[in-house]
């Protein structure tokens, strides 16, 4: 069984803060991490390997620095990794990213592809399903539990807005996973050693046979027009006085608005 996990290196958005004076992001000292959902995808892949046998390959499309994320995957127990990296990929939106991953996965071959639910830098959740579409295989989003996996099929629980569905699919299939799915293991000592020694194989646009009009900025239908800081609400008011006076003022306001 060939299992491929797609991971992304992202800035740790929990650490990102806004400078209130300049309304710009403070990115200094913000560490790069493996997208948290993707760590659960790696864990899911390792568990599938334990149940059904096979090989886990972790891939990422990104700049040379993303190699670090791949080494961490090896430390967790991945058998193999690929860094899909090329200047031509710069500026990819989700369309171009999914196309690029599709070309890479096609080269490597896969029975099960695992992605995180979404990447925390963009929170789009689009790359997984779009990748499945290009591969012409089914996908199941928001997987929260692996119920069963065999050589030819898989059964999982998919989180829905009002509960969950039990879904079955033949292989090959793509899954996107949520955090409830598992508790990721910590790297073993042996894994850390392997990670240190590993030679990371790189794949360029040419290696995966990606067409130039479909990758990078040129292959991206969406454009960022601008970015700006979220506006604070205009009608803010901190109430004054003793707690009693503040509560009086609040209740008066609520009455005025006919809320109580």
């Amino acid at each position: 069984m060939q299992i491929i996990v797609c991971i992304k290196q992202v800035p740790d958005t929990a650490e990102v803060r806004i400078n209130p004076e300049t309304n710009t992001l403070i990115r200094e000292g913000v560490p790069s991490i493996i997208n948290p959902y993707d760590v659960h995808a790696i864990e899911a892949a390792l568990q599938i390997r334990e149940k059904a046998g096979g090989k886990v390959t972790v891939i990422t499309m990104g700049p040379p620095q993303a190699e670090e994320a791949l080494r961490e995957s090896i430390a967790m127990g991945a058998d193999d990794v690929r860094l899909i990296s090329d200047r031509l990929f710069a500026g990819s939106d989700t369309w171009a990213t999914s196309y690029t991953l599709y070309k890479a996965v096609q080269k490597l071959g896969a029975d099960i592809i695992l992605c995180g639910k979404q990447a925390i830098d963009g929170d789009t959740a689009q790359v997984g399903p779009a990748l499945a579409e290009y591969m012409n295989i089914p996908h199941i989003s928001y997987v929260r539990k692996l119920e069963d996996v065999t050589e030819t099929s898989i059964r999982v629980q998919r989180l829905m807005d009002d509960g969950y569905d039990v879904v079955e699919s033949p292989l090959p299939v793509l899954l996107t996973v949520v955090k409830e799915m598992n508790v990721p293991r910590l790297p073993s000592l042996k894994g850390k050693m392997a990670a240190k020694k590993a030679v990371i194989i790189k794949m360029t646009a040419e290696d995966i046979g990606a067409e130039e009009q479909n990758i990078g900025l040129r292959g991206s239908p969406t454009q960022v027009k601008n970015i700006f800081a979220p506006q604070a609400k205009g009608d803010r008011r901190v109430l004054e006085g003793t707690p009693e006076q503040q509560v009086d003022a609040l209740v008066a306001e609520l009455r005025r608005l006919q809320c109580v």
Partner: protein
Amino acid sequence: MRIVIDAELCTGCEACVNACPFGAMEMKDGKAVINDFCNVCKGCIDVCPVGAISEVADGDEFKPGNDLADYKGVWIFAEQRHGKVAGVAYELLGIGRKLAEERNTTLSAVLFGADDSEAQELIRWGAEKVYHAKDVLFDTFNDEPYSQLMIRLIEQYKPEIVLAGATAIGRSFVPRVAGRIKTGLTADCTQLEIDRETGNLMQIRPAFGGNIMATILCPSYRPQMATVRPRVMKRGEYDASRTGEIIPVNAEGLTCRTRVLASVCEEGTCKINLQDAEIIVSGGRGLGDAKGFELIREVAELVGGVVGSSRAAVDEGWIPYRHQVGQTGKTVCPKIYIACGISGAVQHIVGMSSSDIIIAINKNPDAPIFNVATYGIVGDLYEVLPLLIKKIREARG
């Protein structure tokens, strides 16, 4: 398009290094240089105090993917679960109506599954046409038939704008549609506007955990597609006498490899429904212990609201996860949101900042929650809430 830095002008002030959300600006020999992380978001251009950063076209602009003028009309995807159209569909009709008016075009809904009465309901909420496919295949949600049929309809009728809910269903199958058609898709929009000059759809959404907002365009491909978070847009006007056209859609020839064996509605999630609540009273770590939620519950009952919480309170085990509001919990948009003992971390704020009125009670005057609060009370919640209960009772007589 590319961002370039004029090294002559660059003073090495590092303003751009700090402003770049992608970490694409580096300092080399006292000058800023751009690395491979650049996403051409243009965030650096305005922050440069000496105007050393600019955008250049270098011939790799978008080639129109299809003939833009052929695409007309605004579509919204009306999702249903267990035969009932989800509330987000009516919200999409609200914003869809505005966009259709600005573009001087029609507003249509697409409905897979459910029966005629649900299609009629969409018309009363503002749809002029409903493309309605009825088939047992749609009794449960499967990505493949949904995306195949949507692709077919888009190719046949060529809408200019297609909106869907940023829900478990919408976020799952719509990326397949945009992928196949080759067009842009913007996730989780909180604001949609038409650019008066170009007629393009400006899709505004939070990024980086809500720390910044981005305006996204899809200038050269159609349709322009977006998903919209539930409870962010206002519903359109309901008119029981409105009439419209229901266009039956043939669902033959669709394939489906996944199979839903069971569809389980979890009691808790269905009953609380934070997202439909008009008033939410939320507690955070400031409560100090699980018992604090008894006070929160009392306030909620008094004002006819439901109980929400921050993640810290969930992590402490004081209240179940389904009450959590925020980035990894629910996005809510009640008329009144009362935050008690919640500091206002961005991950919490992104889930509740579009509430009509936000009331914050916190003993720390510098807590960021006060930045979004309509009314802020600086004080101990154990003093303030009992007073509030008493005064509301008095006010009601």
